C-alpha cells in the first residue's frame, strides 16, 4: 500500500515535473519568508533577516536540490539523461559504434540462437500434467540395460504395486490410413489408461474405456490434432465415425488438443505419432507372455512417493516374480527413468556442450569490445577530466560509461535477434538430427529475457574495466595537452590480459571443433558393410483381406520385384523386412543346436532380415562362404538361412558354420540350416560395432512380413527411377501405400547427421572466435606500433636492422599469443572430456588435434601481428621524428 503511494508520488514528480517543482518552490519560499518575518519582528532589516535565515536553515537552491534528490525518481531521471547522452555519443562516432554493435551482434546472436534451441528442446515444460511424477518402468536385464516388458509382467506390476497412481504400456503401430491417398501413419497401441497416466484429456470426444481394452472390443482410435486437421478437415463431428485402416474399421473416440504433440517414439526417420489405438491384449494370447519383451511401460508416481521408494518396491515385486517363474525372468530388478531424462536426456549433452561453446564466443566478443573501449577510453580521457572538474563524481562517470555500454549491448542484441529468429528453420534444414521438439523451437519470452540479460551483462562486463580506469584518471595530466595516454602501462597490461583470454577461448573452441572433425572423418571412412551408391529404397506393405494367405503375400512381393527388375536403368532389385541404418529394430531370439540353455531368456538374439533372392547382390553385401539364397529355396524346400560374420564368430568360434542348425523363436520350432556367411553390416549406426545378423528367405518364413522395404540398384542416379518404380508397384495393387522413398545414401547421411550438426555449429563458433581474436591481436600490435612510431624512427635513424626491429615488434604480440595458447591448452585438457560422448575413435586429449590446432592458431596470429609490424618497418625516420 505505502509502496504504491510511494510509486505514485515518484511518478507524479516524474511526469508532472513542472507543477511539482513550482509547488516545492512556493512552499520553500514561504518557509524562508516566514522565518525572515520572524527575524524582522526582532528588528532586523529584511536583507539581514534573509541572510540570517539562509545561514540558519540552508539556502533555497540547496534545499530544493536536497529535497528533489531524496526521491527515487531522481535516479530514474539521471539514468534517462545518461541514456540520451550515451546515444548522442555513439552517434558521434559511427565507425566505433558499427564495429562494436557488429561484434556484439555476433556474440549475442549466436547465444540467443543456441539458447532458443536449449529452451525449446530442454527447458520448456513437457506436455503432460505434472511431468515430474512420470517415469518409465523397465525390466533390468542381465547386463544391467533397460528392457521392455511383457504383458503378463505388466499386469502383475499393475495389480501388486502401491507406488504408482497408474501404469500404462504402449508399443509402436504403423497402420495404413485408407482415407484419400493411402498413407502409412506412425501410431501407438496403448492401454486404456495411457492418456490418464500422462494427464491428457481429449479436446473433443472421450478417452478410451477400460472395457474397450480387450481382444473383443478394441476397435477405437484417438487422433492427434494435426492428423484430424490434415486428413479429416477438422470435422467437428468426427467422434463416433468409422475410419478404414489396414482394411479394418475403427471408430474415432476423440481428438487430442493441439498443444499435445507426442514425444514418444522419437525416430527422426519415422516422424511424430499421430494416432493411438487401444492395445486390447489378453493374458491368454501367445504374444502376451512374460518373455515377450515388446511393450514400453510408463507410470505416474503417487503423490509423496519418491522415485527411490518406488524403485525399491518394484524391485521386491520383480524378485517375487523371478522366484515364481524362474524360467521366464533373468531380470535382477526394475529400472525407473524419469520421463524428462528418457525423452530429453540424450539431447541434453550435445546441447549443453553447444551452449558452453557459444558462451565462449560471447566472452571473446566481450573481450574484444573491452579492448575497443579501452582504446576509446584513451581518446576520452580529456572529456572525462573536464566532467570531473565540473563536479561529476566517479560513480556518476562510471554510470554514464556503463549506460553507453548497455546501449551498445542492447543495440547488439537487437541486431543479434534477427538471425536468431530464423535459427530454428535453418537448424531444422541442416537436419539437427535426433533433437526432439525441434519444430517447437521459437522465440518466446524466456529467449527474449535471456537475450536482454546477456546484452546488459555483456555491456557492463565489457565496460567495467575501461570505465574504472577512466574514472581513476588523474585529471591534471589529462587536461594538459600533449601528454597522451597517461597510465598506459596499466591499460596495456589490461589489453594484454584480454588478448590472452581471447586466444585461450578460441583455442579451446578450435580444439573442440578439431576433435569433432576428426571423429566425423574417422566415421565417414567406416564402411557400412554395403554399397549405398545408386540404391533407392522404398517401403510398402501388403494389406487387405486377400493378403491373409501367406502364399499371396509371397507372390505379391515376388511379382513386384520382377516388375522392378524389368524397368530400364534398373540393375537389380530385392526386398527385405528391414534394411540397415534405417532405424528399424527387429531382433529375433535363436537357439544353436547343441547349445540350448535351460532358461530360454539366456539365448542369443540377432538382427533378422527376411529377404528375397538378390538382396545381397543389390546391396553388395559380400558373401564370404557357402552360397547365397536363391529362388530354389521355396516354401517347400528345406529351410535355410545366411548368417553374418559376427554371428559365425560368436556362435561357432573356430568352426565352419556351414551346415550348422539353429531354431528361430521358441525351442519347439523347426531347424534351419546355415548355408552361407555374409560380411557384417552396420545396422544400428556406423559408430556401433556390428551385431549378429541373420538372413532368412521370405519364401520360407512362416509368417511372411507384410511390410517390406524394396532396394533397387540403378545404373545412375536413383532419383531418376523413383516414379517409374512406384508406378511398377502400383500397377500390381494401387491401394498399397508407398512410403519412405529414399536413396540409401540418405540413410547413411542421416546416421552421421547429429555429428555433422554439432561439428558445423562448433566449427562456426570457433571460426567466429578466432576471427575476433585475430582482430584483437591485430589491434593491439597496431596500437603499440602507432605508439612507438617515434621510437621506431629513432631506432631506424640510428641504424637498427629491420629484422631486429621486426622481432622486437612481433615479440610483444606473440608473447601474448603464447600465454593464451598455454592457458587454452590447459582449459581444453579440462573441458574436452565433456565432448567424449560425441567423439568417435578419437581421444578427448588427442595429441594430433591439439598439436595441429595450436600450430594453426600460432600461424594465423603471427600473420595478424606481422601486418602492422611490417607497416612500422616502412616508417620514414624523418616523418617519425617530426611526428610529435
Amino acid at each position: 500500500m505505502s509502496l504504491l503511494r510511494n510509486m505514485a508520488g515518484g511518478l507524479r514528480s516524474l511526469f508532472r515535473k513542472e507543477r511539482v517543482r513550482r509547488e516545492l518552490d512556493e512552499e520553500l519560499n514561504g518557509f524562508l519568508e516566514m522565518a525572515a518575518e520572524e527575524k524582522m519582528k526582532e528588528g532586523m532589516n529584511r536583507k539581514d533577516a534573509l541572510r540570517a535565515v539562509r545561514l540558519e536553515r540552508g539556502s533555497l537552491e540547496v534545499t530544493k536540490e536536497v529535497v528533489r534528490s531524496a526521491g527515487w525518481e531522481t535516479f530514474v531521471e539521471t539514468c534517462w539523461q545518461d541514456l540520451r547522452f550515451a546515444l548522442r555519443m555513439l552517434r558521434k562516432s559511427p565507425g566505433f559504434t558499427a564495429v562494436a554493435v557488429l561484434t556484439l551482434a555476433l556474440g549475442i546472436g549466436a547465444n540467443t540462437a543456441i539458447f532458443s534451441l536449449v529452451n525449446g528442446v530442454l527447458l520448456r515444460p513437457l506436455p503432460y500434467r505434472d511431468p515430474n511424477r512420470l517415469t518409465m518402468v523397465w525390466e533390468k536385464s542381465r547386463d544391467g540395460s533397460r528392457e521392455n516388458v511383457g504383458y503378463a509382467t505388466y499386469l502383475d506390476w499393475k495389480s501388486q504395486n502401491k507406488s504408482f497412481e497408474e501404469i500404462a504400456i504402449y508399443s509402436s503401430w504403423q497402420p495404413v490410413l485408407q482415407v484419400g491417398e493411402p498413407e502409412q501413419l506412425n501410431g501407438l497401441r496403448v492401454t486404456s489408461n495411457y492418456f490418464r497416466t500422462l494427464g491428457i484429456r481429449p479436446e473433443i470426444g472421450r478417452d478410451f474405456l477400460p472395457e474397450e481394452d480387450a481382444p473383443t472390443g478394441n476397435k477405437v482410435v484417438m487422433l492427434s490434432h494435426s492428423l484430424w486437421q490434415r486428413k479429416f478437415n477438422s470435422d467437428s463431428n468426427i467422434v463416433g465415425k468409422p475410419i478404414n485402416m489396414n482394411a479394418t474399421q475403427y471408430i474415432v473416440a476423440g481428438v487430442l488438443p493441439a498443444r499435445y504433440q507426442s514425444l514418444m517414439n522419437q525416430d527422426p526417420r519415422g516422424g511424430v505419432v499421430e494416432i493411438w489405438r487401444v492395445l486390447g491384449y489378453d493374458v491368454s494370447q501367445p504374444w502376451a507372455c512374460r518373455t515377450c519383451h515388446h511393450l514400453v511401460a510408463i507410470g505416474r508416481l503417487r503423490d509423496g512417493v519418491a522415485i527411490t521408494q518406488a524403485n525399491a518396491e518394484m524391485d521386491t515385486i520383480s524378485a517375487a516374480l523371478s522366484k515364481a517363474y524362474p524360467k521366464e525372468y533373468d531380470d535382477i530388478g526394475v529400472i525407473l527413468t524419469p520421463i524428462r531424462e528418457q525423452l530429453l536426456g540424450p539431447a541434453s549433452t550435445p546441447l549443453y556442450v553447444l551452449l558452453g561453446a557459444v558462451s565462449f564466443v560471447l566472452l571473446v566478443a566481450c573481450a574484444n569490445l573491452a579492448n575497443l573501449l579501452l582504446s576509446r577510453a584513451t581518446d576520452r580521457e580529456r572529456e572525462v577530466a573536464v566532467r570531473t572538474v565540473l563536479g561529476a563524481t566517479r560513480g556518476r562517470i562510471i554510470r554514464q560509461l556503463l549506460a553507453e555500454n548497455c546501449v551498445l549491448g542492447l543495440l547488439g542484441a537487437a541486431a543479434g535477434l534477427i538471425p536468431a529468429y530464423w535459427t530454428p528453420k535453418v537448424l531444422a534444414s541442416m537436419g539437427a538430427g535426433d533433437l526432439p521438439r525441434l519444430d517447437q523451437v521459437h522465440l518466446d519470452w524466456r529467449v527474449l529475457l535471456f537475450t536482454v540479460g546477456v546484452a546488459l551483462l555483456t555491456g557492463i562486463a565489457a565496460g567495467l574495466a575501461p570505465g574504472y580506469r577512466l574514472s581513476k584518471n588523474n585529471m591534471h595530466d589529462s587536461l594538459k595537452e600533449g601528454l597522451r595516454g597517461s597510465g598506459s602501462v596499466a591499460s596495456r597490461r589490461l589489453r594484454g590480459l584480454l588478448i590472452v583470454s581471447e586466444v585461450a577461448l578460441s583455442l579451446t573452441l578450435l580444439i573442440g571443433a578439431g576433435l569433432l572433425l576428426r571423429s566425423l572423418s574417422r566415421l565417414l571412412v567406416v564402411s557400412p558393410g554395403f554399397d549405398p551408391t545408386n540404391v533407392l529404397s522404398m517401403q510398402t506393405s501388403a494389406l487387405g483381406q486377400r493378403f491373409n494367405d501367406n502364399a499371396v503375400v509371397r507372390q505379391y512381393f515376388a511379382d513386384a520385384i520382377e516388375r522392378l527388375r524389368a524397368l530400364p536403368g534398373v540393375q537389380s532389385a530385392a526386398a527385405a523386412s528391414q534394411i540397415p541404418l534405417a532405424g528399424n529394430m527387429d531382433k529375433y531370439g535363436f537357439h544353436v543346436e547343441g547349445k540350448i540353455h535351460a532358461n530360454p531368456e539366456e539365448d542369443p538374439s540377432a538382427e533378422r532380415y527376411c529377404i528375397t533372392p538378390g538382396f545381397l547382390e543389390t546391396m553388395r553385401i559380400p558373401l564370404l562362404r557357402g552360397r547365397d539364397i536363391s529362388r530354389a529355396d521355396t516354401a517347400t524346400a528345406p529351410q535355410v538361412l545366411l548368417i553374418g560374420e559376427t554371428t559365425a564368430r560368436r556362435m561357432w568360434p573356430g568352426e565352419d558354420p556351414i551346415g550348422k542348425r539353429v531354431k528361430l523363436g521358441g525351442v519347439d520350432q523347426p531347424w534351419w540350416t546355415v548355408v552361407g556367411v555374409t560380411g557384417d553390416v552396420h545396422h544400428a549406426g556406423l559408430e556401433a560395432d556390428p551385431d549378429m545378423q541373420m538372413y532368412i528367405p521370405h519364401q520360407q518364413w512362416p509368417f511372411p512380413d507384410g511390410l517390406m522395404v524394396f532396394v533397387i540398384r540403378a545404373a545412375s542416379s536413383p532419383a531418376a527411377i523413383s516414379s517409374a518404380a512406384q508406378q511398377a508397384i502400383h500397377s500390381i495393387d494401387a491401394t498399397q501405400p508407398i512410403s519412405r522413398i529414399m536413396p540409401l545414401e540418405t540413410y547413411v547421411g542421416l546416421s552421421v547427421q547429429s555429428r555433422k550438426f554439432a561439428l558445423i555449429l562448433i566449427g562456426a563458433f570457433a571460426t567466429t572466435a578466432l576471427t575476433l581474436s585475430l582482430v584483437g591481436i591485430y589491434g593491439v600490435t597496431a596500437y603499440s606500433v602507432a605508439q612507438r612510431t617515434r621510437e621506431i624512427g629513432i631506432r631506424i635513424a640510428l641504424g637498427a636492422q629491420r629484422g631486429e626491429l621486426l622481432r622486437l615488434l612481433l615479440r610483444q604480440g606473440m608473447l601474448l599469443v603464447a600465454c593464451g595458447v598455454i592457458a587454452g591448452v590447459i582449459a581444453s585438457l579440462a573441458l574436452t572430456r565433456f565432448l567424449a560422448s560425441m567423439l568417435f575413435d578419437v581421444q578427448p586429449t588427442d595429441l594430433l588435434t591439439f598439436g595441429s590446432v595450436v600450430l594453426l592458431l600460432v600461424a594465423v596470429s603471427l600473420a595478424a601481428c606481422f601486418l602492422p609490424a611490417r607497416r612500422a618497418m616502412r616508417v620514414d625516420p624523418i616523418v617519425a621524428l617530426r611526428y610529435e
Partner: protein
Amino acid sequence: MADKPSDLVQGTLDMLILKTLALEPMHGYGIAVRLEQMSKGVFRLNAGSLFVAFQRLQRDGLIRSEWKATENSRRAKYYALTDQGRKRLNSETREWGRQVAAIARILETS
C-alpha cells in the same frame, strides 16, 4: 553543549513531526518553530532535512497536505496526520519509551 543546537538522534525526526501534527494541522515553518520551542531550542532544523522528511512521510501515507491561507493571509501548505500516521505515532511512542527506559537502565547500572 546546551547552548549549541544539537543534531537529532537518527530516525527520530519523523516521529517528532508526527507528534507535532497530532495536535493540529500545521505548515512547514510552524512545525519547525514548534519543534524548536518544545525542545527549548535544543533542536534547530534546516529546511532540507525537514522537507525531505515531509516528502517521505507523505509518500508513506502518514501525513497528507493541503494548501491553505495562514493567519497572516499567506498561502502555505498545511500538513495533517492521517489515521495511519496516528497509529504509527502511537506505536513509535510506545517503542521509544521502551527503548529509552532500557537505555536508562543500562546507563544507571553501569
